[in-house]
């Protein structure tokens, strides 16, 4: 087991390195591809008078004239040992893990990430819990009452749910619940530590919006999985042994129907974060996704890179957790 985890960790580090290289490459190579010189790029950072002096200053500060590898190396170096940034006489030390400073606001990217991450992860984790619970429950009930009104109703809902883009559901739900009927306040993020109750109250709509789509998918998957498992021979055997029906369903049926669900969930974590980005935009939450969009529209490489790294890290860790869960849920899994 430990060897397995170590191996997985090594792979994770490798993946992060690949991700950072690719993102770096995108920002580095695409503008060049478009035929923009470093002067053109630097000019975009000077709001007013553009002088050769100013351009040189920006280029030096951002290291625009350095080669790809040098810039990438500085980035990696910052993460592990920190960097010093000189602004005239004043020097700003950026301690490890330093992911640089925003080109635009001069804020340390790491602080920005720490700041924004709770918002995105609050949305993502809450929604994931909700969708798994709702999806699996509905799926199981539907499978057990196959053909019933509940089954048909739930599956029609699920099909509708799969087909609704979440930014539409989000806008409609704000319109209905916050504006027309005023049941809920317009969501705005409140820190969990400040007041968990308002935290949750504000997050209900984003959670439901994001979870709706996936709950629908998972309900369909769970139902299909359960139907298949419940038809297997060993279930018949278990019943023949005289096990109570509840035990048959939970211990034998559900357990093996759940294993593929866990795998799929592992694969969906990336989608979950993508969904969180859309949810943030829909509800105007200043999370990582907004930060990313800002970073992109304002050509703020350190910020965009930081967000990609942070989300990549999250996905990798989450996948690790899922893999371990998987090993627990399905003893047949080979750890090698």
């Amino acid at each position, binding site marked *: 087991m430990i060897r397995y985890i170590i191996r997985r960790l090594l792979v994770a580090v490798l993946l992060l390195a690949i991700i950072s290289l690719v993102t770096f490459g995108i920002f580095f190579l695409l503008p060049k591809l478009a035929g923009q010189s470093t002067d053109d790029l630097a000019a975009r950072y000077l709001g007013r008078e553009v002088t050769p002096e100013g351009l040189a200053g920006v280029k030096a500060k951002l290291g625009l004239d350095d080669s790809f590898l040098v810039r990438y190396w500085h980035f990696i170096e910052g993460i592990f040992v920190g960097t010093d940034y000189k602004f005239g006489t004043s020097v700003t030390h950026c301690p490890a893990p330093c992911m640089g400073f925003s080109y635009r606001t001069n804020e340390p990217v790491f602080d920005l990430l720490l700041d924004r991450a709770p918002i995105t992860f609050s949305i993502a984790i809450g929604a994931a819990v909700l969708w798994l619970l709702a999806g699996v429950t509905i799926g199981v009930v539907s499978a057990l009452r196959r053909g019933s009104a509940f089954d048909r109703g739930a599956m029609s809902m699920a099909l509708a749910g799969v087909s609704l883009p979440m930014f539409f559901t989000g806008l409609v739900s704000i319109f209905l619940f916050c504006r027309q009927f005023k049941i809920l306040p317009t969501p705005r993020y409140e820190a969990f530590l400040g007041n968990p109750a308002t935290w949750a109250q504000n997050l209900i709509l984003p959670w439901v919006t994001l979870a709706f789509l996936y709950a629908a998918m998972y309900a369909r998957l769970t139902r299909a999985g359960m139907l298949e498992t419940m038809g297997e021979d060993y279930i018949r055997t278990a019943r023949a042994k005289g096990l109570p029906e509840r035990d048959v369903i939970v211990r034998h049926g559900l357990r093996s129907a759940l294993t593929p669900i866990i795998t799929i969930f592992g694969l969906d974590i990336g989608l979950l974060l993508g969904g969180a980005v*859309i949810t943030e935009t829909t509800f105007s939450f200043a999370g990582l996704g907004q930060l990313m969009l800002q970073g992109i529209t304002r050509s703020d490489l350190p910020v965009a890179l930081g967000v990609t790294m942070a989300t990549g890290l999250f996905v990798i860790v989450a996948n690790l957790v899922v893999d371990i869960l998987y090993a627990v849920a399905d003893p047949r899994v080979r750890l090698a």
Partner: protein
Amino acid sequence: MTAPIEVSGSETEAQPDAVLAGVDRKAIQGRSLGQIAWLRLKRDKVAIGGGIVVMLLILMAVVGPFLVGDPNQPHNDLIDPMLSRPKTGIMHSGISSHHWLGVDLPAGRDMLSRIVNGAKYSLIISFLATILAVVLGVFFGVVAGYFGGWVDTLIARTMDIFLAFPLLLFAIALVGVFPDSAFGLSGNGLRVAFLIFVIGFFSWPYIGRIIRGQTLSLREREFVDAARSMGARAPYILFRELLPNLWAPILVYATLMIPTNIIFEASLSFLGVGIKAPTPSWGGMLNEAKEVYEVAPHFMFFPGMAIFITVLAFNLFGDGLRDALDPRSSR
């Protein structure tokens, strides 16, 4: 963004040869696989309904733009200059006999025309992106599955990376920094081409995994062995022996990938990195509506419903197609 979860989840279910289970291979000459599937599909009313809607949508996208007028024609006279919302129509939507779905804000452009023209772009992008994804996915899936070894490891790992990461974020990064003109293209032509590339490129692993799995099981079968022992070379086996046996899952998952790609495109446009203004797109309309939907709810409702109906129709049809081609997965 959503991804075809069913695709990955149904990996174990969709075995094309399951369709043939119990059917003597030599006896099918009279009734092809397609005919059998068609017979089954015809009995599935819901799927046929979905299929009809899909056909109508395609028809609308092809013919519609010629019927509904210019989507960019403003009707400023329909907008209240002080309250800046349509003067007339139910809930200030501007709905009238001339504008069946009302007009948008602030220019007063016909919503119907914008939605119909939006369908054109939405469908073009999602179809072509799907084709790209299928071509890439099938190629890499077959190659990985057939050759195995390090080729398989490399391709399978790559697909895992693709599948595990927040692709929407990558797509945003790519589209966001993409220049205005490149490769001799510019403006919206370039945008559309680029969106097709991004969406297709980020969704090929979904179908790649399935095809790889199918290939893994197919390559152990007698007819492949036979071909190999007769000295057939790899390309021949790949394209003449394996591929014809894979068309059923390809068709099913391509159909199910289209709605996902429609939502992918709409998401990018909604986030402001999709098709450029004033070219109509459903996601872009929702983006514009985001600012004013309280004043003019119809501006949000119609494009949203357009996406919903389209995606639902494709999903229904795709589900039915899968059931028809693979009875074991019937639900």
